[in-house]
């Protein structure tokens, strides 16, 4: 196993003050390039493979026909063009955006709360989004046009409530009280959601489908709906990746380095929540991505958030695009719920990484 995971001497990444280029600056690029290549490869495979076989030349022709200003004309039949451009491409792009957001959100939460079990659903965004979606499905009339908006608002409000309760709970034990508040808020909202769902058995399958999560009906309009939130959220998280390294050492040390810990935390939590709420509003509650991608990146690429945040985004996108490829092909033409795929692949893979890294250098997950 040591062959796959060569020990690196500077693994316990030194704390680097914001703005300073540390000794590991070059190391940042290697995992980014590797994960980007992985993502490109998986995306290419995804656009070429599906329940319907479309020859790669026709896939390429269809893609070129949609490059602006190129005026490329393809002889691909309209149905195949629609399959590639209207169904597969938005699925891939949407899965990429959602995967990137969940993984980056998980990484940010793990850093902020210094808790290896933190995932982007920790503060109740999933429970809130689930309640919002259920309310829309039960009371919102026939079409589900407003479903993403209800889910987004529900998710954001749940985290806002958690944050306010948690901060009121005490400044010293900030991290613990906000996590406990998150547990309580999530439990309450899930209870309300379950009650509404059981009361209206006719809609139960629709609700259940949403909660399981899926990209089966993804469209370009979903992509444009969440893109602004994802871009803003990703930019904020990337801008704060060095501060997450500093917070890791402790608040007082952060203070001596001129970092306002409370403000940084609020900004990072708000950005991660915004992005996660936008992601789940169109994808439903896909589990496991948020927690395992960041850990896998940490265990393989390095413990600094300068690496973890950007690489998690790229690797998260690659992971979810790949999971969706499996979800739509393994039992084609039937679909498999993507949450089943993320857990079935993610859990063993994560254990493998964990065990092999431990064997290699005796490092645990708790080393955040």
């Amino acid at each position: 196993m040591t062959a796959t995971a060569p020990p690196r001497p500077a693994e316990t990444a030194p704390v680097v003050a914001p703005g300073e280029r540390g000794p590991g600056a070059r190391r940042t690029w290697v995992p980014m390039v590797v994960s980007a290549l992985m993502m490109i490869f998986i995306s290419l495979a995804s656009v070429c493979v599906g329940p319907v076989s479309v020859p790669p030349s026709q896939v390429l022709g269809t893609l070129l026909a949609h490059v602006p200003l190129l005026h490329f004309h393809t002889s691909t039949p309209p149905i195949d063009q629609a399959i590639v451009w209207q169904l597969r491409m938005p699925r891939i792009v949407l899965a990429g955006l959602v995967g990137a957001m969940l993984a980056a959100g998980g990484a940010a939460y793990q850093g902020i709360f210094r808790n290896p079990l933190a995932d982007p659903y920790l503060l109740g965004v999933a429970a809130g989004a689930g309640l919002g979606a259920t309310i829309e499905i039960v009371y919102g009339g026939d079409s589900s046009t407003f479903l993403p908006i209800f889910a987004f608002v529900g998710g954001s409000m749940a985290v806002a409530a958690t944050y306010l309760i948690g901060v009121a709970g005490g400044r010293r034990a900030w991290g613990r009280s906000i996590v406990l508040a998150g547990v309580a808020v999530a439990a309450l909202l899930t209870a309300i959601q379950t009650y509404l769902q059981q009361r209206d058995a006719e809609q139960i399958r629709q609700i259940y489908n949403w909660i399981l999560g899926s990209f089966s009906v993804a469209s370009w309009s979903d992509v444009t709906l969440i893109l602004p939130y994802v871009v803003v959220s990703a930019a904020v998280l990337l801008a704060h990746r060095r501060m997450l390294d500093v917070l890791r050492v402790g608040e007082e040390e952060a203070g001596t380095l001129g970092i306002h810990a409370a403000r940084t935390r609020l900004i990072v939590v708000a950005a991660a929540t915004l992005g996660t709420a936008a992601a789940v509003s169109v994808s439903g509650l896909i589990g496991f991505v948020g927690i395992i991608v960041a850990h896998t990146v940490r265990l393989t690429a390095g413990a600094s958030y300068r690496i973890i945040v950007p690489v998690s985004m790229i690797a998260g996108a690659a992971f979810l695009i790949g999971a969706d490829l499996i979800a739509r092909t393994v039992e084609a033409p039937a679909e498999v719920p993507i949450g089943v795929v993320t857990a079935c692949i993610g859990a063993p893979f994560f254990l493998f990484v964990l065990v092999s890294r431990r064997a290699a250098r005796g490092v645990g997950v708790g080393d955040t």
Partner: protein
Amino acid sequence: MFTRSRGIPLVAALLSGMAVLLPGGAGASESTGTVFPVKVHAANGTVTVPARPTAIVSLSPTATEMLYAIGAGSQVKAVDEYSDYPASAPHTDLDGNNPNVEAIASYKPDLVVVSDEAPGLDKQLDELGIPVLSDPAAANLSGEYAQFEELGKATGHEAQAGAEVTKIKSEISKIVQSVHKSARPLTYYYELDQTYYSATSSTFIGQMLGLLGMHSIADAAKGAAASGGYPQLSGEFILKSNPEYILLADTICCGQSPATVAARPGWSNLAAVKNGRVLELNDDIASRWGPRIVILLSEMAAELKQHPAS
């Protein structure tokens, strides 16, 4: 319409006279051929109904429709919140999916009909001395006919149940004969919701459509048999299959219509969408395999005649 008295064999009429003499049969104004106590076979085993029931609680929308169709409507005391047909049924807020024994018992029923046996419900009702019949969704038409006969026997309407079955059979065969059988099988995509859950030809609804010479594109989903015949299909597979007909059984639940289908990305390429062969079905009729199944089949047959696949 539901208290049908014509077409009952003479024997039944004679027997009904005897039934009046038996305990529990007193006051029975409707004809009955059943001698109580009676043993009936339901999905939960053999159930003994001690006397002609006069306070039936139905927790299954399909069973409610069946009870009214066989003339047992006047014996029904309460139906669950989803039993919305016929409109005259005594609606309550009883929940068939999550039944509360005390709430059921408060109606003092002498027979309870459920669609799926909730775990432990029959035992609890047994202790209260209330017989329970479990009638889950029928697997095929003969299963539906058996449920009619079982309910007829349990409620004292054996003859009417038999007549209803005969009537459905003859109406179905009339509809089937009226449809010009296409030389090639007509393909359809049957939609259960807007995330592309569908039904194969081996489901109840698939068998009904099979009578009209139609077969489901969902049959290609190999795992479909394992999933009970209701797989979730890939959008791209539906586009490529280019089914001749699209049948929407999600018009009530999910507000789908030919217009919403045409607006889906890529779907305007489909022959069914271009040629107006998208049929809106009533979700409730399409998912309750009781007396109104004939309506569904005749709507489908009318569509085949009105919009024949070229």
